[in-house]
């Protein structure tokens, strides 16, 4: 599997033409259900960001991992983008202990990320095992847009189970995890390492849009990259931080080009 990925990456770098599409189709057949070409995606809004993702956006029927402190907002924004293409329930599974430490979801605050607070289902798990069970159960349901799970321990086997459940149900699984766990193997289609970044305000006394430094750390069929992204509240879409404002930021500049 690893070798195949390399082949895919090489050809993507050298010549993104019909060969590549054919190769992807062939791989999709090999993988059985892994249909990268026909799977629906949720566009994130920023062209460069979507172009960097396989399929042109965040893939549905799959699980994605977001690691890092302060990544809850990024995850909520991802769920909000998915809700645009696939309306339904957003299930937020949380550890009871973590809720005490990090606070609980606040209805009006969710609206800033394009989520309808009335369509949130909040699940309290007593431990990681219960959170994972609830996630799997929710992902298998067709009524679900996205399932957000705050879990610490997750092995490859468990993440595969989640992925299969997501393929059955059609929603997106978003795993919110500590940054250190990104080194562990996982079946997630994309893995992000996210940390909050200073926002750019237009004038003093006003805060700019929420900003993150999001690193697409690993993705099947994509080159790892780092983006400075903002979530634009009025339009409810991701955007890249204007590269000029931040001096030379090669990844963003390259993506724009």
């Amino acid at each position, binding site marked *: 599997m690893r070798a195949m990925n390399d082949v895919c990456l090489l050809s993507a770098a050298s010549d993104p033409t019909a060969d590549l599409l054919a190769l992807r189709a062939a791989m999709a057949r090999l993988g059985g259900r892994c249909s990268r070409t026909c799977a629906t995606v949720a566009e994130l809004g920023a062209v460069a960001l979507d172009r960097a993702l396989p399929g042109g956006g965040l893939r549905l029927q799959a699980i994605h991992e977001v690691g890092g402190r302060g990544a809850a907002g990024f995850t909520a924004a991802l769920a909000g983008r998915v809700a645009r293409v696939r309306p339904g329930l957003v299930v937020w599974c949380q550890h009871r202990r973590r809720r005490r430490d990090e606070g609980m979801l606040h209805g009006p605050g969710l609206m800033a990320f394009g989520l309808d607070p009335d369509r949130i289902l909040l699940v309290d798990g007593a431990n990681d095992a219960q959170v994972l069970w609830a996630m799997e159960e929710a992902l298998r349901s*067709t009524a679900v847009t996205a399932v957000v799970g705050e879990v610490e321990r997750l092995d490859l086997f468990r993440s595969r189970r989640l992925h299969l459940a997501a393929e059955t149900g059609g929603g997106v699984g978003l795993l919110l995890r500590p940054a250190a766990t990104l080194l562990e193997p996982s079946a997630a289609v994309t893995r992000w390492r996210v940390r909050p970044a200073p926002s750019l*305000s237009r004038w003093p006394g006003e805060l700019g849009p929420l900003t993150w430094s999001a690193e697409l750390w690993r993705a099947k069929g994509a080159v790892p990259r780092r983006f400075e992204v903002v979530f634009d509240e009025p339009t409810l879409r991701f955007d890249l931080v204007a590269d000029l404002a931040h001096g030379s930021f090669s990844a963003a500049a390259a993506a724009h080009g």
Partner: protein
Amino acid sequence: MEASGPRLYALTREAAATKLHCGLGLADARAICPGLAVADADPKRDAQALEALALWCGRYTPWTATDGDDGVLLDITGCAHLAGGEANLMADLETRLAPLGFAMRAASAANPAAAWAWARFGTGGVLAGTRTETAMLNLPITALRLEPATAQGLVRLGFKRVRDLEAVPHSTLTTRFGAVPVQRLHQLMGRMEVPFTALAAPSCHAVRLAWAEPLGTTEGIEAALGEALASLCRVLEHAQLGARVLQLDLARLDGALHRLQVRTACANREPKALFRLFRDDLDGLDLGFGIECLRLAATRTEQLGARQLHSDGGSGGEARSEAEARLTERLTQRLGIDRVRRLRANDSHWPERTIRLVPALDAPSPAPWPTRGPRPLRLLEEPRPIGVVAAVPDGAPRRLRFGGGLADVVAAEGPERIEPEWWRDPEGQPRDYYRLDLADGRRLWVRREGAFGTGAPPRWTLDGLFA
């Protein structure tokens, strides 16, 4: 003078035949009967066992209740003929309870007070017709279920039997002993109603299955449950109702009772869907020597008109809300009703009260959300005190001390003043909320309570996180 130290709480039949009696000091009891075997009393578990016994008696009538520390009361009005008459019912009760280790005496009479007295002070058995009155008149005063002091007072005055009390004018009794003895006397003689509260109000939508041979396998129970659900759903359909809460009682051969409860997200009478809710709980059940009786009741129902449920080819929206209900039910069944919740708007501008967490199964219809200034993604359940350095006393923070470190504020927005709800807490102070961007990119929601120069220094707390 009462003996100190441990005392006898209850006696076995053999011990009761000796000179021992309840309340006797343990040391005295050992002196009378050196080989006495004792065990610690556990009134709490006794009460639990009695309640379980009362529930078990639900096989004869839906109206059962515990009665005092040692009795179970059954209202068998209209139920006795199902067991072949009162005498047969009691015989059946005795043959079933004796192997389970219960020593019992059953009595049946025209009213609960008479039955209570006849079981304890009479010979037990069926008491009917004119026999009741004479039997009651011959009972001792204690059969009136009076306070020990009152009963002793009556005995001291020469009232030994109920008939002695009947003979004197009741008004004199009332003057001397209060209203209770006369009231009890009327109840015993059937001239006054005895209030009766059953353990659980019986549901009118219930199905009961009993077998000659106990069912010992989970598959068997599942099949039986399927059958019971199908017939219950027929009853519900006839009444145009759907179940919201279902209760399944499984009576084990050894007298134990398993009670399982499931809740549905909306009124439902689809046997297959209801069965799925029970399945997980059935799996881990200890069946013992087998289940001899199953009782399924819809304890909460709601109107449900005649419509086709679970249509596969239905419209997208309907199928989705159906799937949503199934998911909510399943999560709730496994995790508990308070662990699967929805957010609902509360009509309040006070941040902690803007939001309500309600069980997803009973979520009310959504109310519009207030849009009043930027609000954080997460609100801390308990605001954390922070230290603040500000440029001017009433200004925005420049530097924060929290979580064991210092953090510089690069940008601040505020204040947004929120006035307390005077009708809830008249003493409350207005709050000033700030949105702060820290140097590391975090965005916080902090508040100041109390203004500068009004006595106590203002208190700063961290209330929420934006990203």
